[in-house]
């Protein structure tokens, strides 16, 4: 390729950075979950997400063609070069926020990866097919958990509602649209995110209904993550932790 395909790279970074950052957050639970069974299940989710990251970022690095690896992309970029949505970088806080976030994310990923299976780009399609299998199970598990804890006790309902209220303004960013999105649509690599908004809405509202949880009515949406324009302060701390070895020992092999 003579010219760098910057839109495709941007798209692939968005695809890879979401599971990278969410996988990192989810892995923070290891050894600290409310029950052994949940500990093991969360680790499985995190492992799936890390695996997806490797596929997307490897492809991004290949398209970039500058000799960087998926690890270089994960461990040697700074905040402003990350393209994940803000929702995945906010701290876990508690099991409620962790599971509501997982659910809101899964409810997006499932229809999104479903459409990406038909991508005109074979690699995108292949990665989507593999990731979708995992996302379907994640959604099953996270929606069950949201329903159980929303329905459970007064206290558990309250914790889940608090989490939902906090996360809701971060959910609109899934459906952002810019030149990259338009370029991907034009080339049949990916549809516009807004095209799956209805599906997301219906999954989310039916699950929240069953869970006795109420979606906030304020339509305000934070943005700046998937464009890299303005991340939250949390991402810098996450990267400082995650990248510490690669940053303090340049060039070392591990």
């Amino acid at each position: 390729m003579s010219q760098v395909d910057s839109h495709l790279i941007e798209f692939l970074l968005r695809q890879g950075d979401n599971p990278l950052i969410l996988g990192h957050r989810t892995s923070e639970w290891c050894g600290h979950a409310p029950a052994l069974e949940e500990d093991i299940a969360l680790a499985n989710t995190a492992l799936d997400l890390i695996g997806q990251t490797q596929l997307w970022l490897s492809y991004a690095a290949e398209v970039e063609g500058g000799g960087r690896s998926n690890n270089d992309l994960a461990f040697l970029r700074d905040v402003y070069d990350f393209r994940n949505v803000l929702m995945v970088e906010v701290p876990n806080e508690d099991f409620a926020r962790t599971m509501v976030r997982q659910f809101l994310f899964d409810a997006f990923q499932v229809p999104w990866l479903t459409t990406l299976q038909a991508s005109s780009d074979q690699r995108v399609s292949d990665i989507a097919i593999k990731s979708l299998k995992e996302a379907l199970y994640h959604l099953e598990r996270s929606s069950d958990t949201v329903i159980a804890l929303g329905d459970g006790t007064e206290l558990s309902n309250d914790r889940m509602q608090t989490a939902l209220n906090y996360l809701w303004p971060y959910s609109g960013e899934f459906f952002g649209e810019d030149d990259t999105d338009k370029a991907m649509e034009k080339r049949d690599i990916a549809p516009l995110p807004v095209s799956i908004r209805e599906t997301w809405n219906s999954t989310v509202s039916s699950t929240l209904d069953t869970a006795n949880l109420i979606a906030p009515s304020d339509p305000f949406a934070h943005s700046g993550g998937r464009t890299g324009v303005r991340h939250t302060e949390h991402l810098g701390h996450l990267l400082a932790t995650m990248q510490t070895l690669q940053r303090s020992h340049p060039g070392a092999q591990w």
Partner: protein
Amino acid sequence: MYAQSIRSTGKAVQSLEDMSAEDRQFQERINRGEKIEPKDYMPAAYRENLIRQIGQHAHSEIVGQLPEGNWISRAPTLERKANLLAKVQDEAGHGLYLYCAAETLGVSRDDLFGMLHTGKMKYSSIFNYPTLTWADMGAVGWLVDGAAIMNQVPLQNTSYGPYARAMVRICKEESFHQRQGFHIMIAMAKNGNDEQHRMAQDALNRFWYPSLMMFGPSDKDSVHSAQSMAWKIKMNTNDELRQKFVDATVPQAEFLGLSIPDDHLNWNEKTNQYNYSEPDWNEFNDVLAGNGPCNTERLDARKKAWSDGAWVREGMMAHAAKKAERKAERQAV
């Protein structure tokens, strides 16, 4: 090793002649190599000892998640992160299998957690040491898992069926853990730069003696082994296993180009094994008494996970009850 701090009854092992008919039959079954199953007759002391031993073993697995979990968020590559996470997840799984084995003896998992949280039950002393650099992930896998495997392989033949079966499963999954650790050590000590080599040596320096302590006190000071060995819930003496560990590990350290922090270490032509220095048993006793470098942090982390998770466990149960109720109502209509 998971019986590191099990108190002895202080009594000598009874001879078959002195036993009650039931106890004699029980002991003879064990002598014949039969497995004892949950509903079989067993002496109260056998049951109590097993609950403590399996419980401490289970606790060691889940507290053992913490020192390595400490580095999941700082793993240097995506592959290392996934491998370490999978490994620490296995430890949770091993804890789960072992708690289930203990539960067949009539104790609940929540009770066992309660005893861990109140300090009534212990876990292996090794997990009270800090993990300070990435090389510690190598050292823990190589040395700590290496020591654990020495202990766990023979336990596959322990007399209590559910414990033995849990150990079979654990040993099968454990096979990649030590390799994973050694692989990290190779990358750092053999193929790494000077600073990585230094980190690897530092990790070995800090984990060598605590690893030797994992096997428990020297046989001459270990008064409670005899009964456990007669019951086949302990298969080898502490010193036997420790020697086996030293003999296996020294050549591995040489391969890595690392030196064992023991000036008295040398090969004994007569015994065909290494002479080595004993660890500082005062330090061992301090750690068991709660004064290790990380005792407070480890226990606090477990207690926090448990109390922070209470609303989740209760919420799930309440939902299950409501769901069952609604189902019953629907069926009644």
